């Protein structure tokens, strides 16, 4: 007799998803599956479109991180048309990207993943949201979060015309230069951003790290996976969101491989399961060994903690200090603690803000020349950035006129999809015993995937805290065995 628990839909997460948990006769977890029930087919329907339109088309993959796609696509076009943009254009692009990373990471911590931490996973569900967070950090801070987000998004609108689905990326540069007024505002926002990021890290320190219960949770084995890690690094193996080579380290932290993005398909592959529309990435050399971790498994992770694991340090001073402090606290590098992704995310936000400051004060960004017209015949190109949720790769093949003939996309969260499934299985197996399950336990399973930064959150400050869940446990015959509703 198999019993089954369905969590549908999973929440405070990007896109649609559901979790199916199967129990054996003793009421212990036999297996758990996270299924993604949606597909649009971008890789097919961009065929026939002009390559230069790809930044504006592919960014519609995600309305929360369109900038990531827009940038990966634009860089892919540089490669496709064999054109090197002017320095000013490259710096403005990177500046824009830093603002985006700062804004996205900050929002996630306060509205999405943060509540599980700041108020705690065992807190009443009504408090596990931004309101609970505000209760802990104060209304003034809440206003600051919303304020800084708005300022960041407003300045992005000034720079690229739009913030939801930017338009300024072109092969060989960007559509328009910056003005003195815009740069002045960017400098102000950057300064505020650095201060706010430091504040966020202090919040994390006070409310999470100094709380023994939460620290134990972070360090617990339930949320630990010894996987490989992947991320972009610069020539000095330092963290970089915008450009560099892709580096992979093994579960012991040793460099496993480092490759330019052009060689991505020699190093990573996608696995298909019939019960989900989302594919699972793994290291080609290691092969697909199923949802298991360890040195022999091909499963690797990306995004904040992974990026810090693969890098030797951070270029900007304050963030680098925090980087050292984190690893000291967690007991060394690499860290395999899934919940530490939240901490790493805040450190990355600080790096993004510092980078914003550095670039905003670079006089070259005011240069009027931001375009170089391509002359080469296009054929094939690959582009990469680190999206908030992980390594993002765009690969296009075109005809001589630059019309897309083939496209391949490796989309950030995909890199983590195997690890997320693994995490769900491990947490479910560890937490559900003898059929005993309640709302709190289910949330402890859900915090597994939230650590990876589910793409979407809500920035309104009027979320009710309710996490309405319904658990129906069925016998194999279909007869309802046990039902639990928390609302």
């Amino acid at each position: 007799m198999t019993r089954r628990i369905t969590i549908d839909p999973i929440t405070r997460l990007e896109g649609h998803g559901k979790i199916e948990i199967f129990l054996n006769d003793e009421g212990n977890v036999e297996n758990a599956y996270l299924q993604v029930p949606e597909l649009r087919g971008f890789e097919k329907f961009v065929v026939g479109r002009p390559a230069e339109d790809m930044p504006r088309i592919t960014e519609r993959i995600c309305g929360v991180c369109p900038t990531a796609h827009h940038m990966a696509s634009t860089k892919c076009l540089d490669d496709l048309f064999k054109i090197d943009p002017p320095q000013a254009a490259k710096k403005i692009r990177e500046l824009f990207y830093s603002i985006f990373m700062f804004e996205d990471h900050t929002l996630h911590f306060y509205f999405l993943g943060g509540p599980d931490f700041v108020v705690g996973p065992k807190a009443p569900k009504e408090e596990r949201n931004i309101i609970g967070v505000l209760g802990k950090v104060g209304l003034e801070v809440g206003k600051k979060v919303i304020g800084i987000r708005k300022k960041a998004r407003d300045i992005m609108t000034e720079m690229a015309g739009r913030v939801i689905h930017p338009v300024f990326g072109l092969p060989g540069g960007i559509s328009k230069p910056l003005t003195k007024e815009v740069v002045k505002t960017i400098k102000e926002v950057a300064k505020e951003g650095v201060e706010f990021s430091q504040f966020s890290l202090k919040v994390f320190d006070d409310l999470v790290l100094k709380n023994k219960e939460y620290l134990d949770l972070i360090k617990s084995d339930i949320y630990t996976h010894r996987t490989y890690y992947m991320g972009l690094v610069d020539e000095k193996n330092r963290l970089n969101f915008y450009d560099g080579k892709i580096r992979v380290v093994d579960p012991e932290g040793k460099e496993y491989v480092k490759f330019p993005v052009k060689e991505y398909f020699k190093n990573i592959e996608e696995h298909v399961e019939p019960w989900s529309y989302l594919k699972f990435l793994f290291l080609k050399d290691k092969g697909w060994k199923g949802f298991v971790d360890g040195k022999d498994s091909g499963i690797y992770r990306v995004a904040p903690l992974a990026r810090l694991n693969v890098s030797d340090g951070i270029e900007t001073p304050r963030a680098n200090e925090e980087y050292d402090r984190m690893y000291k606290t967690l007991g060394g590098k690499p860290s395999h603690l899934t919940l530490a992704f939240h901490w790493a995310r805040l450190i990355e936000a600080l790096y993004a803000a510092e980078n914003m400051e550095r670039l905003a004060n670079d006089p070259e960004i005011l240069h009027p020349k931001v375009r170089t017209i391509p002359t080469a015949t296009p054929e094939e190109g690959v582009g990469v950035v680190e999206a908030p949720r992980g390594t993002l790769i765009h690969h296009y093949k075109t005809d001589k006129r630059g019309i897309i003939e083939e496209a391949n996309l490796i989309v950030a969260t995909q890199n983590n999809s195997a690890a997320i499934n693994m995490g769900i299985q491990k947490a479910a197996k560890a937490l559900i015993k003898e059929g005993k399950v309640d709302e709190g336990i289910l949330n402890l399973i859900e915090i597994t995937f939230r650590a990876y930064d589910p793409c979407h959150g809500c920035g309104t400050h009027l979320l009710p805290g309710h996490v309405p869940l319904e658990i129906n446990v069925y016998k194999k015959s279909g007869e309802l065995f046990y039902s639990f509703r928390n609302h």
Partner: protein
Amino acid sequence: MSKPKVAFYWCSSCGGCDEAIVDLAEDILKVIEAVDIVFWPVAMDFKTKDVEAMPDGSIAVTFISGAVRLSEQEEMAKLLRKKSGLIVAFGACAHLGGIPGLANFFEKKEILETVYLTSLSTSNPQGILPQVETEVKEGILTIPKFYDRVYALDQVIEVDYYLPGCAPSKDIITNALTAILEGKLPPKGSVLAPSNSLCASCKRNESKPEKLRIKKFFRPHEVIIDQAKCFLDQGLICLGPATRDGCGSRCIEGNMPCEGCFGPTEKAMDMGAKALSAISSLIDSQDEDEIKRIVDTIADPAGTFYRFSLPKALIPRKRERKI
């Protein structure tokens, strides 16, 4: 008096429309305080079962974004239709099919094969494709069915109002929400945006010469784009003349031409046809061969003119190859 209930749902959406609502939060505090949000899967934890338990018509307004590509999306749209007084198609995908609508240039089989079989980085020697039902060791797992084509929202349920744009602009959303709460709505079936074309409010309109005449169309990366001149005058394809006003010309401000995300103006039956009309009227030639040469400089007519609106076109998908 209890607050009116409001719900949000997303079908085949990118989440940008939800971001657009979040971006308003500061601006429409009073509006949001006046309603009770009862369902918003992306941001809140209410479930489908909660909606099923609500009395029919008890949700005052439901905003649905995203096109319909999979069976679950149609089921949810139909459920919400039952439970809601008003349904507003929110954003270009719900309004016209949006960017996902470009998939109508391809057959379902082609899409699945590319994603799961022939993709360069996919290793799938057994040729596994996602299945509506899969038997695993422990039981049966289900996922929704991927349809043969993309549908706009009003092709599966009755829609009361449309909020156009990808994503709709702040003003459009705020005005619509205010109108709904005050009960001052235009006739059902209306698009809640101005009825004229973007050129009417575009700052570059003044720079247009009396007659626009194009000997050659350019693609945006082929020329340095002037920041003040009308794009059409620069030989760049801008769909402003065929696109509904209301977005605030944000792409124009970004120094890139309009792609038509707000959809057609009031009277147009087919956006692509209107855009084609507008662009072809610029061709500066009366010679058959020269006209052909100029037409050749337009790289992707169907994909450009129907960028956001293919599912709602008179010919909503590529004609099947074999009869």
